[in-house]
């Protein structure tokens, strides 16, 4: 557990309070209310129809798969899944075809869950609700922002793409924890099959509610919502900057104004977008074109049964195998989970391979080619680990064999043989060692008398005779035995 995050001000220490709103685009084949393809990167305005263009007379029909993915997210976050109602959120914007967004308001599908981070900290989940995405506006001319642009182009391909908005409790206490939260949430969303997790394509979008207070103060400060956070890096930077800005305002005797602020990646600053007074009155009311959504017990149970193992459980499984005592192990566990190599590690351990070694080889060597590593037969992986742990292969040799296995060059034994790493039986080695002793009686005498510095010379001779095929560790052991 690291030290709590503090901002040292001129008048004392401050802590920060952060809540995150994460918009996750669902990986459905079609949009939330029509059968248009939900696909990133198509020619503008090609995945559109009367419904997602909001043409007069068109009506929405809810996508069953989107509901199932929303329920899967809710289940994974330990939420209660409840009967829910869609509302209309009314405001004018050119990339919103109906000039209202269909979303869930006071009766969302998922409420009251929590996300456990890698360090076992818990962040509360207030809600995770379904809604439709807007289209995308590109401002042309000027600096690409709305002010000073010559005109704007609108692409409605994204309009109507299903989103789940996940709202955390204000439980996050540092920029680093905010990043850890999003990273963990991303892993959960990918594990549920709900999302591809691509922040750079906008599949995952994060807004941060940031406030500061004096250390020990139980009440919350006034918060600002920071938008345009397109990466984990900008999330951490923006929170840090915004918290410091608020501390500076407060220490100057000012008040933080509740407002929406825009993060500028280039300048590294947040700037005011609109104040609370300028905030839209969204005039929410129940969407009359849709009926109440009330999934039955059986449906909820079926979705839960279909869930794959979640990151926390996978992490716990690895930790139970290898222990979490060393920082290196923690890092290797994180890497293995991230690359989806934990199944391989667990399977190899199940076949009798040493778990620590399995994790290390997975997180370091196999990680060089994760796709091939995920396709590796656990038996083959276990075998190379066994060859290494039994001393038949040195660590260096085992790594070389593993690299060849990942390249699809055959079984561990065949590769070891081809590379000349194998074939020295215990008897053969013994014969070679005896030969070397016979040729260098003086050196042997010194070694036998306890001069360990000569061991390296004798080992080198054995290696020369065997053209490097001998295992250094075994040679050393053989020499030891003879001296004893």
């Amino acid at each position, binding site marked *: 557990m690291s030290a709590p995050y503090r901002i040292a001000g001129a008048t004392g220490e401050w802590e920060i309070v952060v809540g995150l709103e994460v918009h996750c685009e669902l990986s459905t084949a079609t949009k939330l209310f029509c059968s248009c393809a939900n696909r990133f990167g198509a020619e503008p305005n090609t995945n559109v129809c009367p419904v997602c263009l909001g043409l*007069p007379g*068109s*009506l929405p*029909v809810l996508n069953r798969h989107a509901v199932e993915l929303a329920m899967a997210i809710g289940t994974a976050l330990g939420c209660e899944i409840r009967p829910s109602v869609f509302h209309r959120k009314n405001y004018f914007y*050119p990339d919103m*075809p109906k*000039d209202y967004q269909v979303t869930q308001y006071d009766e969302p599908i998922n409420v009251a869950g929590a996300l456990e981070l890698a360090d076992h900290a818990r962040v509360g989940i207030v809600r995770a609700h379904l809604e439709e995405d807007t289209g995308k506006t590109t401002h042309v001319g000027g600096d690409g922002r709305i002010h000073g642009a010559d005109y704007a182009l609108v692409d409605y391909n994204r309009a109507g793409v299903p989103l789940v908005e996940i709202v955390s409790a204000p439980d996050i206490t540092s920029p680093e924890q905010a990043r850890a939260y999003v990273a963990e949430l991303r892993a959960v969303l990918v594990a549920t099959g709900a999302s591809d997790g691509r922040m750079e394509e906008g599949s995952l979008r994060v807004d941060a509610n940031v406030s500061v207070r004096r250390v020990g103060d139980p009440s919350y400060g006034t918060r600002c919502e920071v938008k345009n956070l397109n990466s984990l890096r900008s999330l951490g930077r923006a929170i840090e900057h915004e918290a410091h800005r608020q501390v500076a305002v407060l220490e100057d005797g000012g008040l933080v104004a509740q407002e929406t602020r825009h993060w500028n990646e280039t300048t590294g600053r947040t700037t005011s977008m609109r104040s609370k007074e300028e905030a839209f009155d969204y005039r*929410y*009311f129940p969407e009359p*074109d849709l009926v109440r959504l009330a999934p039955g017990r059986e449906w909820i149970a079926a979705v839960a049964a279909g869930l794959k193992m979640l990151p926390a459980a996978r992490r716990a499984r690895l930790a139970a195998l290898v222990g979490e005592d060393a920082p290196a192990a923690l890092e290797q566990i994180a890497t293995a989970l991230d690359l989806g190599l934990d199944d391989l590690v667990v399977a190899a351990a199940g076949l009798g391979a040493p778990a620590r070694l399995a994790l290390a080889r997975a997180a370091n060597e196999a990680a060089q080619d994760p796709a091939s590593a995920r396709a590796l037969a656990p038996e083959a992986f276990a075998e190379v680990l066994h060859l290494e742990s039994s001393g038949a292969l040195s660590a260096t040799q085992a790594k070389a064999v593993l690299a060849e296995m990942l390249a699809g060059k055959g079984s561990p034994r065949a590769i070891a043989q081809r590379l000349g790493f194998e074939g020295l039986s215990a008897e053969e080695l013994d014969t070679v060692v005896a030969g070397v002793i016979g040729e260098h009686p003086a050196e042997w005498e010194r070694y036998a008398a306890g001069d360990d510095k000569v061991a390296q010379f004798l080992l080198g001779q054995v290696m020369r005779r065997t053209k490097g095929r001998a295992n250094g560790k075994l040679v050393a052991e053989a020499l030891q035995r003879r001296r004893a």
Partner: protein
Amino acid sequence: MSAAAPFAGGAVALAAAIRRGEESARRVAEVVLEEIAGADDLLHCFNAVTSEEALRAADAVDVAVAAGRDPGPLCGVPVALKDNLCTRGVPTTCSSRILEGWRPPYDATVVSRLRKAGAVIVGKTNLDEFAMGSSTENSANGPTRNPWDTSRVPGGSSGGSAAAVAAGLVPLALGSDTGGSIRQPASLCGVVGLKPTYGLVSRYGLVAFASSLDQIGPFALRVEDAAALLEVIAGHDPADSTSLAGEVPPLAPEVGRSPAGLRVGVVADFLVDASPACADAVRRGADALVAAGAAVEDVAIPELLHGLSAYYLIAPAEASSNLARYDGVRYGLRVDADDVATMNARTRSKGFGAEVKRRIMLGTYVLSAGYYDAYYAQAQRVRTLIMDAFRRAYERFDVLLAPTSPSVAFPIGAKSDPLEMYLSDLFTIPSNLAGHPAVSVPFALGEENLPVGVQVLAPALGEPAMLRVAGALERAAAPDARGPVRPHGAGAGR
């Protein structure tokens, strides 16, 4: 109407004649297009007449019949569509400037079903802009006139469809009913107008006014024809999430069945606020039902009178959201400006008429932060109250009887006060709030010798009993109380 009117015997009979090859769909279409051309300069029922498409569709019907195929239940029958129903490639304007130039790339579900049933679509009829009104005066294209007295309104908002059927220009038409927009003009024009149970007919392709209240329904001169048209357009549609599941039972056969044994409640609260002739028509309708063997009794449902206030909060609230999309960005009118917000504002200022703007502002206000509970939420509670009151009444009665409209057709320009206009829908709104079906049947001639309809209300999916009673009323009605009527001025006679 010329003596050669090919559908004097009704739409169902006309379809049968075409199916048997005794009548040609082409000839019928030609007669109808000619009649429209002759009468519509005066009446202005139509925003657009789709002559070419109509003749092509009629020819296809004739070819099918000649080949021994059955083109469907509405084989060759001309139908007019309210101009808020989307028609592929044909302008759909909602009688608003804001949709100028827009051609939908798709057909409304009801339109596809009509085509599949062999109907011949002849044009798009005038309406109050976005169906907001009770007189068809709020149209960017000017008012439609009532063929019974061309100085008067046909009612609204489906005035173009009602007047076209009343004048004998078409045997069938579709309208939409959000607070009475089918039934009230039906009453004022002496035709049958039916609002189905909410969810019985798909709203996909109906340009939304108030989504929780809107429902598409038929106009006809006869109850049987209205029922036959309803059978064609009703039924589950996966494209409308509020569409009801399940099979639709045969409806047309109900019309001829005796109402004997049915329990009919007369909504006494409504008679007080109706004109003498409108109230009297209900009383005489009730007498006729007693004579036919129904059990009739007065019932007090005072909650229903609160419907109007609730409606004028809920409907504008939904409308303010539904009409937000007309922003000049994607289709229809655009008045350019240097920035988007100004372009939006200018487009909407120019594109919408006064009544639409009034309702958008009203609806925006009632949904605003701090007002939602006092207005929108309160109106929803009243809506629940009305549904409960109906439920209690339907424990005792199969159907209810009421006036459709408080008055006969009024002169064009007579109701300049919006609140006075809103009262036109006092008796029709409760059925929309509850999602129930109701039908207006032409029954008598009232003040100024103008037609008066009687309204039959039923609980959700109560169309069969409702149609039995409607049929009985039709058989007892004054024969001169319904169209077709040759368009004429005041007091000129038929």
